[in-house]
């Protein structure tokens, strides 16, 4: 990407252009009367005003800045793109993301990063309930605190919380790893605190740096699966 291309920015205004047209452009579909985006051309989306499904389904290494807050499923199923939300995000931001970066400068509602397979989701503020639910490989870094039932059935990936975690953290967790700096109100079934070995300190430092934070990783506690519920055992009945 040369310097000329890097500076090219397309402004799309959701008060003038339909959501379908905006998303179609971002996904590389043709839109009548609108020039297609060039490779590497950045996009600024104005007047998001809480719209749902903004910038979903991208599959392009493109930077998209959304001015204002967004509704449900912003940057859903993202692949490759870097999406910056200059506000707060509704339910399911970056749900099922496959790759790329999604950065929320405000807070995020529930189910942030749900089922996401890859990429990096950064939430500068707090995230609501079920953050990282069924995550499948994504990395999530939350600047503030997260709500209850976060990382429920989390399968893979890493969830970093600089603040506190709500009730039932990591309930029925599989192989995902959770790092929390603050207090955890309660742990869910089969989720336990684990030793911070050097490799965990190293990966946490890398994640914090990637998200733009410089905390001391040693202040964090690691949580993960006790792996006692992987196969049904009637003696564990009370855990379900």
């Amino acid at each position: 990407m040369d310097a000329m291309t890097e500076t090219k920015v397309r402004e799309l205004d959701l008060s003038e252009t339909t959501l379908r047209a905006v998303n179609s452009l971002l996904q590389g579909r043709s839109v009548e009367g609108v020039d297609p985006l060039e490779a590497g051309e950045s996009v600024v989306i104005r007047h998001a005003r809480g719209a749902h499904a903004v910038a979903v389904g991208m599959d392009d290494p493109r930077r998209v800045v959304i001015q204002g807050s967004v509704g449900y499923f912003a940057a859903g199923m993202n692949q490759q793109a870097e999406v910056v939300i200059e506000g707060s995000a509704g339910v399911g931001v970056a749900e099922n993301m496959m790759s790329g970066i999604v950065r929320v400068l405000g807070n995020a509602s529930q189910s942030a990063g749900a089922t996401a397979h890859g990429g990096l989701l950064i939430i500068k503020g707090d995230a609501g309930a079920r953050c990282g639910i069924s995550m499948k490989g994504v990395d999530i870094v939350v600047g503030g605190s997260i709500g209850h039932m976060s990382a429920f059935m989390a399968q893979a990936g890493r969830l970093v919380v600089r603040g506190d975690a709500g009730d039932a953290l990591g309930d029925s967790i599989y192989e995902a790893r959770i790092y929390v700096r603050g207090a955890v109100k309660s742990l869910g079934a089969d989720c336990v605190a684990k030793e911070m070995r050097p490799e965990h300190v190293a990966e946490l430092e890398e994640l914090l740096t990637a998200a733009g934070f410089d905390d001391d990783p040693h202040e964090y506690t690691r949580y993960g699966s006790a792996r006692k519920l992987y196969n049904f055992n009637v003696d564990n009945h009370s855990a379900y």
Partner: protein
Amino acid sequence: MDDIDLARRGLRQSATYDPATIHAIQRAAETGIYDIRGGGAKKRVPNFDDLLFLGATLSRYPLEGYRERCGTDVVLGGRHGAFPLHLDIPVTIAGMSFGALSGRAKEALGRGASEAGTSTTTGDGGMTPEERGQSKHLVYQYLPSRYGMNPDDLRKADAIEIGIGQGAKPGGGGMLLGQKISERVAGMRTLPMGIDQRSASRHPDWCGPDDLAIKMGELRELTGGEKPIYVKMGASRTYYDVKLAVNAGADVVVVDGMQGGTAAAQDCFIEHVGIPTLAAVPQAVQALQELGVHRKPDGVQLIVSGGIRSGADVAKALALGADAVAIGTAAMIALGDNDPRLEDEYRAIGSSAGYYDDYQDGRDPSGIATQDEELASRFDPIEGGRRLANYLRVLTMEAQTIARACGKAHVTHLEPEDLVALTVEAAAMARVPLAGTTWVPGTPVGM
């Protein structure tokens, strides 16, 4: 010892504690765990066998059986401007996962469905290349677990089916026991090999009908609005659920009755939760009619599943108002499941041909419901596909036979007026008269 011998000895079987019940209690006491099995409800419930068609006589005019055309094609999913599915027959293949079934079985379903001109459906665990490759029309299930779910596969699909539940276990999630979590299945689902995998019963990023509308909006944004969106639900409060699904934006509604099969669930769940298919269809049709979208050019189509076995069942479902049906268990049987030629092997694992339902344990001798490579290799997907196509053709021809006898030039022209019921229960559920009377008992929901 037969019943007569027992009676002569003064031994009387309890209707409450029959031998099966006694066995269930003993099994529970020995193992400490509930019985898990596959398949659908085994108890006898009012079903399509309890309905009869009124063939044409003097008051109706039949079509010539082997000469006059009786159409079978259906168009599904065009309500919101998506590219609808044009199917040659009104019988589709229900969602069954790769994981529950072998890759070869999934391929055979695609082959058979494509040869017969109809659609097949993925399941929990994602889309396999062999299934996509062999399926002319492939519906992609979008399920709570999102195992293997990715936007590329969504776009490869011909339609998207949002799974809310299934007839065997409305309100329940999925279950795939460790025996079937092979390396490939585990990889597709991002899970450790050999664990007992339980799928969530609720979607992770939305709850309730208002959220569902927003989720559909996202899926339409993702696919440029090109893919029809189905909503599949287990039959329970069907009248209300169908209304909610349609108002949320469904293009097609799939209603699965309690006879519909599953790969694995608790027996008590299968037998005691949900309602019979027969009771669900009129509720769904009523909901669609009240919303003005039943059998309209820009309407919402209804697919019915759960215990569809014959062309007569197909015809009866269509007569009650379905636009198409879906088959799962019957499709597996057509492929070769429960084949009596495998009787010795079924007996070796404690079952018998015609009774086998332990799909959860991965030892299916037919090679269909297994991830065991040796067992799966026995199954020939080309032969299986041919058998399925044959079966689908027979279902279609049988439905045509009945439709012609009722004077209909298209199978979807069949109507409730063509039906009567053999029992009071069936009459009340199906909302057709008891045979020989004008009596339709019961008060429909919402009235």
